């Protein structure tokens, strides 16, 4: 009986209207959430005493390259964050540049799509500050995060729309619990998008790119996991 239902569902999922309905549902959730609930509302922030004793690493736990190992050994003195794409002023920010921008510190909960959660204190500039410095062109609709790590041979990347990019809690974090970001948590830079699931919070960040469409990136679904069947809108 269970097997029959499973087989039936596979047949529906493989059909064109079935696949369309499945994709549409994610869109309904995004629209409903944005209709009934201001997207600028903040995810809960906790007291420092709520911080988990350790912060689980997941997905890539390091970047498997000599360049990264050398950068890690040198404390990421030469690491740079590129800001490019549909911007008036492309930027190449050093770690020092990033540390000198106005900082936001937030104790938030990380919710992995698998179901587990961890609480940590993150520090870094708001992504909005960086985007204002680069000045988005009017055609820009999405912000793409490109990463140094590869997962199962493919480069990791993620993307969000401008509503999430400018959310006050969307920061480019370089510290976790008051220390420089540990290797397994994405050293030296990762994104925090507190109203999205964990796979959106790209680690080992190298490039922020403003684009008009996600079609030509990766397999065109907007992120490493999205290309493998996960929902682009991870607010649900």
């Amino acid at each position, binding site marked *: 009986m269970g097997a029959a239902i499973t087989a039936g569902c596979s047949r529906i*999922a493989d059909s064109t209207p079935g696949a369309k309905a499945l994709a549409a549902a994610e869109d309904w959730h995004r629209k409903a959430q944005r209709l009934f609930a201001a997207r600028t509302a903040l995810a809960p922030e906790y007291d420092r005493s709520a911080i988990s004793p350790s912060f689980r690493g997941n997905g890539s736990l390091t970047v498997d390259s000599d360049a990264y190992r050398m950068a890690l050994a040198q404390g990421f003195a030469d690491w740079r964050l590129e800001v490019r794409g549909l911007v008036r002023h492309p930027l190449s920010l050093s770690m020092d540049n990033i540390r000198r921008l106005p900082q936001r510190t937030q104790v938030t909960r990380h919710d992995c799509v698998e179901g587990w959660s961890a609480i940590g204190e993150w520090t870094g500039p708001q992504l909005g500050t960086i985007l204002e410095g680069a000045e988005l062109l009017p055609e820009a609709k999405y912000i793409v995060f490109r990463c140094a790590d590869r997962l199962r041979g493919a480069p990791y990347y993620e993307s969000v729309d401008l509503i999430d990019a400018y959310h006050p809690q969307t920061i480019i974090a370089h510290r976790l619990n008051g220390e420089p970001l540990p290797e397994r948590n994405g050293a030296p830079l990762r994104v925090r998008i507190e109203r999205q699931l964990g796979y959106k919070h790209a680690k080992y960040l190298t490039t922020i790119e403003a684009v008009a469409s996600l079609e030509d990136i990766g397999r065109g679904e907007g992120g490493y996991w999205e290309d493998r069947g996960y929902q682009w809108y991870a607010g649900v």
Partner: protein
Amino acid sequence: MKRHAFSTRLWHWLNLVCVVVLFMSGLNISNAHPHLYWGDWGFDPRDAWLSVPRFPGWMTIPGHYSLGAARDWHILMAWPFALGLLFMWIAMLANRHFRRDIATSRSEWRWRSIRAEVAAHLRLDFHHGRGKYNFLQKLAYGLVLGVLLPLMIATGMGISPGWEPHLSWLIEGMGGRQSVRSIHFLAAWALFAFFAIHVALVLLSGPFRQIRNMITGGRE
């Protein structure tokens, strides 16, 4: 016996489809991290209050482990499920099905009459006097419609990061996000238990007539 209203029958079958797909895709999602915690956070199986077994492919949608596809099914069916329940409640209040058939009266809560009903059920004697449902049925249907099904929606929204800022009172009230996730899981299995008993009692009490009545409404 009073006929089942069209709205009741429509919702009954729609809800069955939704709950089955939600449950089976939920088991696939459970396989991603089959450990349950209390409180706001939890990621280490050693801290889990319960670690559940891996559910085999014949129990899950899709039939192989795929968190992305299972979540697709789960969030698709959440819509007809939640809107269907809202519709059912409006219909039940409007057509007085709730007042007439499900709401219990004080006299039914007497220990002696409850004991008599339980005894009759254990003898598989399903004849009851006036009214459509006996006390145990009213209690079960009331708990499912009024508590478990709404709880599935509330806890489902509570573990969705997009809704969280607007439901923080609810999530804190239930003890934090991982507690909400645990309650979602427990309520799902409570519904499964109801489903199993419900089907068993239909089979024991004239399945042909019962199923026909839930399709056509039955005779007045």
